């Protein structure tokens, strides 16, 4: 169990992409015309948190306030985990990993979280009855629950009943549902962008082009650490990422087969520092 992998340049060169041990009792999902996936390059991540912010703007994520965050009820769909090691601080953005064998999907009694043929782990807000089982069963704890009418309270500046007449309603992305109280939510791989790209492609009678769908977090990442792509598209750069030696899966032992995968952090310390430094 190693959440953040750290390799030296040498190790990274030598490393082979790790084959996941893929064993499951469940039959495979039907495969659609795309297979969406994401890679996060930890070496490129500086932990600036712009992805968190962009996601919030794109996906109508409400600001819940200090008290709620203190209770452990933050709503951001991306969490920046920090690990303190001898080499320094490592940042790891953790969002929904869109597991192919998702523990959350099997436990929802009303099928509110479902797998799409394109590999998205869908969350249907309006089907959710709020049993919270999915989140309890998520090993990454990437799901967020609306304990209060957060979005309405945010838009209505404190009063959920006044949300509709508040000018902040203009802030909300019309293509994304404003979640009400009592439903679960999580990273959707910006499904609204995928669907709009698909509609555009359908109108023009073509397939979705390579790189046409860009997620909000990918769009803003200054280090270009996040890449979103289609595994069935042979031209997509995501294949290069996934074939790299640094490629690994978070919590592989839980056997969830995530579509979001990580590239190990690279360390490249100055040899002189190592000699002079107090610690090895």
């Amino acid at each position, binding site marked *: 169990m190693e959440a953040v992998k750290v390799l030296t340049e040498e190790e990274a060169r030598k490393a082979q992409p790790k084959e996941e041990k893929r064993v499951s009792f469940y039959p495979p999902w*039907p495969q*659609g*015309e795309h297979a969406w996936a994401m890679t996060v390059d930890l070496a490129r991540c500086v932990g600036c948190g712009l992805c968190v912010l962009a996601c919030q703007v794109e996906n109508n994520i409400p600001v819940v306030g200090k008290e709620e965050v203190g209770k452990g009820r933050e709503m951001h769909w991306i969490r920046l985990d920090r690990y303190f090691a001898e080499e320094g601080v490592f940042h790891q953005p953790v969002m929904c990993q869109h597991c192919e064998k998702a523990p959350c999907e099997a436990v929802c009694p009303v099928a509110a979280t*479902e797998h*799409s*043929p*394109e590999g*998205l782990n*869908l969350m*249907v*807000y*309006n*089907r959710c009855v709020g049993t919270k089982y999915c989140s309890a069963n998520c090993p990454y704890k990437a799901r967020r629950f609306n304990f209060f009418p957060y979005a309405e309270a945010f838009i209505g500046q404190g009063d959920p009943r006044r949300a509709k007449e508040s000018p902040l309603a203009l802030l909300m992305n019309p*293509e*994304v*549902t*404003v979640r009400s109280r009592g439903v679960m939510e999580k990273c*959707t791989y910006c*499904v*609204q962008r*995928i*669907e*709009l790209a*698909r*509609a*555009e492609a*359908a*109108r023009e*009678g073509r397939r979705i082009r390579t790189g046409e769908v860009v997620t909000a977090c990918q769009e803003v990442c200054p280090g270009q650490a996040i890449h979103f792509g289609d595994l069935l598209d042979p031209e997509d750069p995501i294949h290069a990422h996934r074939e790299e030696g640094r490629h690994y899966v978070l919590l592989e032992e839980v056997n969830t087969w995530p579509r979001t995968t990580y590239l190990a952090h690279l360390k490249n310390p100055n040899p002189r520092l190592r000699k002079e430094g107090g610690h090895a």
Partner: protein
Amino acid sequence: MRRRNRWLKTLFWGSVLGVFLALVLVFSGVAVGALEQREGRPVPQPVPFSHAFHAGGLGLSCRYCHSAVEYAPYAGLPPTETCMTCHLYVKPDSPNLALVRESWEKGELLRWNRVVNLPDFVYFHHAPHVAKGVGCAECHGRVDQMPVVYQPKAFTMKFCLDCHRNPAPRLRPREQVFNMAYVPDPELGRELLQLYHVRPPEELTSCNTCHR
């Protein structure tokens, strides 16, 4: 047998039968959606606009007014400009058009009443449907025969799924999309399924097709 016992017997077997009948009613599917009927009565509009005359009699294409239908999620409501293109000259003094003229002169919006109102968690996109050969009449009915427009079918999830599970019999050639009188041919529909690259049902019924 005492009277009380007869009474109790009736009560007992009556309630057993009642529960049984209620279960049959629920599970036969007869009552599906009975509580959630959303198909409409005619929706009165501020200006008495007759689709039967404009679309039916005059033969205006749907997209003359609902011009966004091929490009956008919504079909679009015509701005006052569209009305005034003709009504500057046709029946310029009609009292029925007073509100339209007022809107034109003041530059204010004319507020039409919505006929079809999907819940906000449903994301319907007109453009791909038009592009893949789903006719207007398929969902909206014979609008060209409605003096006052109403929603002919309940737009429930089942209504959408019925088509997404089996699209072929509801497809028509692209040229016939705006043709109100066209009757889809299932044989042709199967060919169009290939021709227009309509995705297979398991993809079309994936939740993210309509919900995000």
